[in-house]
Every structure is written in C-alpha cells, then in structure tokens.
C-alpha cells in the first residue's frame, strides 16, 4: 500500500465517521460536528493529492485547503447560530422535534 492510499483510507474512515454521526445522532450540535468531520476529511484528500500528486510545486491543494478552512469557519459560525436560534424557538436542539415547517 502506497502512502497516498494510506492517506486516502484515513480520510475515507474519517468521512464515514462523520456520515454515521450525521445519520444517527439527533442533537443538532453533534450533527454539525459530523459535517465538520466530513469537511476535514475532504481537506485531508486535498493535502494528500497535493503531496503525492504530479505537480506539488504548484500548490493547488494547499491553496484550496486554505480557502476551504475559511469557508468552514463561516459555516460553523452560521450553523451554531442556527442551533441557538432553534433552541430559542423550541427549548431544545433535538432535530426530530424541529418540524414547524412541515406541511
């Protein structure tokens, strides 16, 4: 197994963990953290392909990860603000009870 494959397997496992958390847990904060883990797994892939890819001196992977980190920070801030707004409206953050918009 080459190092690139090892890195990709690592990020695949991390992505699956985040996916399981998103699917199984019902707390909105934990679901958001699962999404963050999946995003981190994508960043790991960018770094791995940059490190072992054909043109590492160009640095595309690193540049992409820097932008992805900035967008992830914005996403976390907005997501947690939504969690707080949800808590203000229904006094808990369980996603199964957030059904006010259901038709």
């Amino acid at each position: 197994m080459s190092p690139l494959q090892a890195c990709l397997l690592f990020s695949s496992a991390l992505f699956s963990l985040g996916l399981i958390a998103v699917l199984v847990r019902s707390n909105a904060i934990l679901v958001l953290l699962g999404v963050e883990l999946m995003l981190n797994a994508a960043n790991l892939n960018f770094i791995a392909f940059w490190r072992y890819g054909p043109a590492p001196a160009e640095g595309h992977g690193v540049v992409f990860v820097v932008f992805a980190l900035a967008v992830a920070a914005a996403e976390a801030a907005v997501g947690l603000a939504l969690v707080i707004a949800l808590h203000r409206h229904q006094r808990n953050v369980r996603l199964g009870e957030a059904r006010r918009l259901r038709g």
Partner: protein
Amino acid sequence: MTALAAIALLTLAAAAIALALRDLIHSALLLIASWVGIAAFYLWAGAEFVAFAQVLIYVGAISMVVLFAVLLTRPPTGPATREPSGRAVPGFLAGGAVLGLLAGAVLSSPLPAGTGAAPAFGVRELGLKLLGPHAGALLATAALLTVALLGAVVLAAARGKEDAS
C-alpha cells in the same frame, strides 16, 4: 508510515469516541483532540501553514464556539438525551457501505506512487500564490466571511415578538 498510522489511529479513535458519547461537553473536548490529530497529519505531509491554520481555526476558534453553543443550549434537566433507536442500524449500515465503497475504490485505483521527498512549497510560495493569481478569490472569501459572521450575529441575537418574555 508508522507516524501516519499513529496519527490516523489517534484521530479516528478520538472522533469515534467523541461522536458516540452522551455528554456533549466531552464530545467537544474529544473532537478538539481529533482536530489536533488532523493538524498533525498536515504537519506530517509538509503543509505547515495549513497545520497552523487548522490549529488556530478549529482548535482555537470553532471549539470555543461549539463549547459556548453546548452551554447555551444545554437542557436544564441534565444532558441525558436518549437517541431514537430506529435510526442507528440504517445509519451504521449506510456509513459502513460508504466506507467500503471508498476503500474499495482507493485500493483498486491506479494512483500515482509519489516521490518520497517533501515538496518545496512553503509559506512564501503560498503567499505569492494567494496574493497573485488567487487575489480575487481571497477578497471574495473575506467578503463571504464578513457577511457570514454578521448573519450569525443577527441569527443568534434576534429577538422575535413571540419570545420577548
């Protein structure tokens, strides 16, 4: 390779335990360990700037925001919330299927073997790239971050009529 295996094992173990725990505070603290592990992977791969940015953004900032959100939304009767049991088995099945699919694709694809040497792409080269060909994207990201943080403040601080009490 042994360093990579150790980093991967620690990160995955911390993330798995964090997402399985009942208490959200413990989950957040363990996820900080997992993010530190990811930063260690970036250092191992030779992307120093990204590693330090990961530590600053995730370990420093997002973890604090998560902890504040956990404390602000904690139910008064205690943190014990029972998960609905009907979703566990399909969730684990779907996650395992995705993991199997990804691992199979990774192991069967003809990937480049890669050179052993770390690429020479330091902070100076990254800065030249960011402020040269990617300057427009950098400005757009700055605007996005400002707007998103303002929106977060508006969302979290809005006082509607129905809960003015």
